């Protein structure tokens, strides 16, 4: 007998024409699907949650807006008055060009000419809230621009507190002089695409062998005290069995590596084919894979559903890497804040910058101040160690035309700056599904 239950109504879009539709979360035999019907293009169903983890428990602290939202959503983006979350991070595209041609690319940028440095300077002055903004320089691949160090400097001059680079790491591995300039200009940290610990994975997803390049990029960034967070795009059958190895690789390279930020594949931008449910990797599949593959290093009880955004958007875990273990700092049952309040974008930004930015390195920080074995229970040692060897395990599940929940979108804090407006990431990159 099929057990079927409608658990929530919301709004979404048609994947073919992007018109706004009513949609439902439906639980069928333990898994949860988003189902919707377009008057022109028919019925659509996308798996949201497999049911390995209790979804009701995971989403119990989701923010409530108490209203139906903007009837034109997502067409009034920029941000409309119904948007429920402030900007945590601002993404700024600085080029359409790239030095790879990946199978999956959320940006799938075209051939527009690069904006000039002066144009970018104007944008930075518009988007920056002095002393607060975390700007992510993105593309395309930003490091194809020779003047990227000047862009970083411009971001700092505009008052951006943190400047993050989203990069595949190729130029960071091959051009140390360039990296030195980026560091000198004030680059804060790098988010580096990192799909796995085996070259076959890169060959499949990125079209070339890249593991050695990724390792070199991490080491080069370390020379200049630039923290690197590894960002795997998780594609079933390609690298979802490598999750444990990715975590072990990253932990072994603390403090050069600040964490791992998992991104289950989403069907935005350039996609090799239209997705069936077996091509999706849900957040609860990722949670189980972490627990099964990470050999006891990372436990689910230490992973917290996203609070800055909607719980279905991702999670975070906060750890300290010790010489021969990894110590969790958060516990879901004891997370410390009022159980019912989503966290603010400002608090979220303060947390991530505390973890992802490397502190200046002192010597001998692996030992206790008196030269004895490290004692994580010493307040002095803990405060020193958490600053140098803090480690995050995070995830972000971007929405696409198949699964986008416009109510969930209202809680988005990752905003793309587009000329003069802020647009939530998933609506900015939302694209129609067409046969490739």
């Amino acid at each position, binding site marked *: 007998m099929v057990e079927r239950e409608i658990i929530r109504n919301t709004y979404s879009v048609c994947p073919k024409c992007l018109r706004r539709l009513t949609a439902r979360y439906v639980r069928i035999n333990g898994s949860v699907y988003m189902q919707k019907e377009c008057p022109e293009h028919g019925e659509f169903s996308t798996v949201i949650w497999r049911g390995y983890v209790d979804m009701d428990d995971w989403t119990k602290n989701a923010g409530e807006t108490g209203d139906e939202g903007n009837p034109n959503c997502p067409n009034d983006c920029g941000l409309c008055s119904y948007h429920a979350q402030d900007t945590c991070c601002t993404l700024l595209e600085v080029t359409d060009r790239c030095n790879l041609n990946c199978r999956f690319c959320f940006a799938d940028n075209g051939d527009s000419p690069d904006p000039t440095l002066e144009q970018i300077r104007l944008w930075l002055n518009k988007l920056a809230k002095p002393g607060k903004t975390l700007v992510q320089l993105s593309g395309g691949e930003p490091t194809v621009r020779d003047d990227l160090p000047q862009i970083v400097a411009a971001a700092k001059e505009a008052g951006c507190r943190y400047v993050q680079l989203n990069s595949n790491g190729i130029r960071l591995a091959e051009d140390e002089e360039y990296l030195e300039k980026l560091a000198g200009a004030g680059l804060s940290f790098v988010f580096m695409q990192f799909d796995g610990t085996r070259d076959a994975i890169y060959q499949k997803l990125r079209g070339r062998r890249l593991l050695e390049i990724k390792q070199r990029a991490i080491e080069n960034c370390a020379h200049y005290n630039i923290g690197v967070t590894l960002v795997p795009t998780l594609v079933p059958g390609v690298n979802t069995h490598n999750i444990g190895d990715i975590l072990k690789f990253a932990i072994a390279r603390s403090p050069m590596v600040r964490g791992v930020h998992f991104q289950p594949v989403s069907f935005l931008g350039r996609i090799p084919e239209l997705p069936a449910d077996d091509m999706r990797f849900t957040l609860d599949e990722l949670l189980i894979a972490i627990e099964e593959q990470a050999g006891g290093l990372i436990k689910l009880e230490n992973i917290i559903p996203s609070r800055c955004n909607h719980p279905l958007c991702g999670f975070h875990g906060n750890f300290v890497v010790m010489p021969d273990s990894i110590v969790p700092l*958060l516990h879901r049952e004891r*997370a*410390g*804040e009022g159980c019912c309040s989503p966290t603010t974008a400002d608090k979220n930004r303060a947390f991530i910058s505390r973890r992802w930015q490397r502190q200046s390195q002192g010597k001998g920080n692996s030992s206790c101040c008196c030269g004895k074995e490290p004692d994580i229970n*010493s307040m002095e040692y803990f*405060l020193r160690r958490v600053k140098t060897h803090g480690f995050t395990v995070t995830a972000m599940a971007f929405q696409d035309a198949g699964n986008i929940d416009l109510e969930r979108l209202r809680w988005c804090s990752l905003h793309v700056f587009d000329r003069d407006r802020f647009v939530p990431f998933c609506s900015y990159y939302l694209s129609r599904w067409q046969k490739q």
Partner: protein
Amino acid sequence: MEEKKTLTCYRCNVELKAQKTYFEYLGHSFHADVLRCPECGEVYIPEDLAKGRIAEVEMQLEDK
């Protein structure tokens, strides 16, 4: 000559001594040397410790 400052327990009238003391918060336990009465165990937490290291530990342990 610099005057040596001491603190005395108001109950026991005994000088407080710096001792390894454990603090627990959100399932974690940390120790620091703080002034304690050797008789009754009463601790003295100076303002700079409370607003400094202890506040920092709380921040690191709380969920953002």
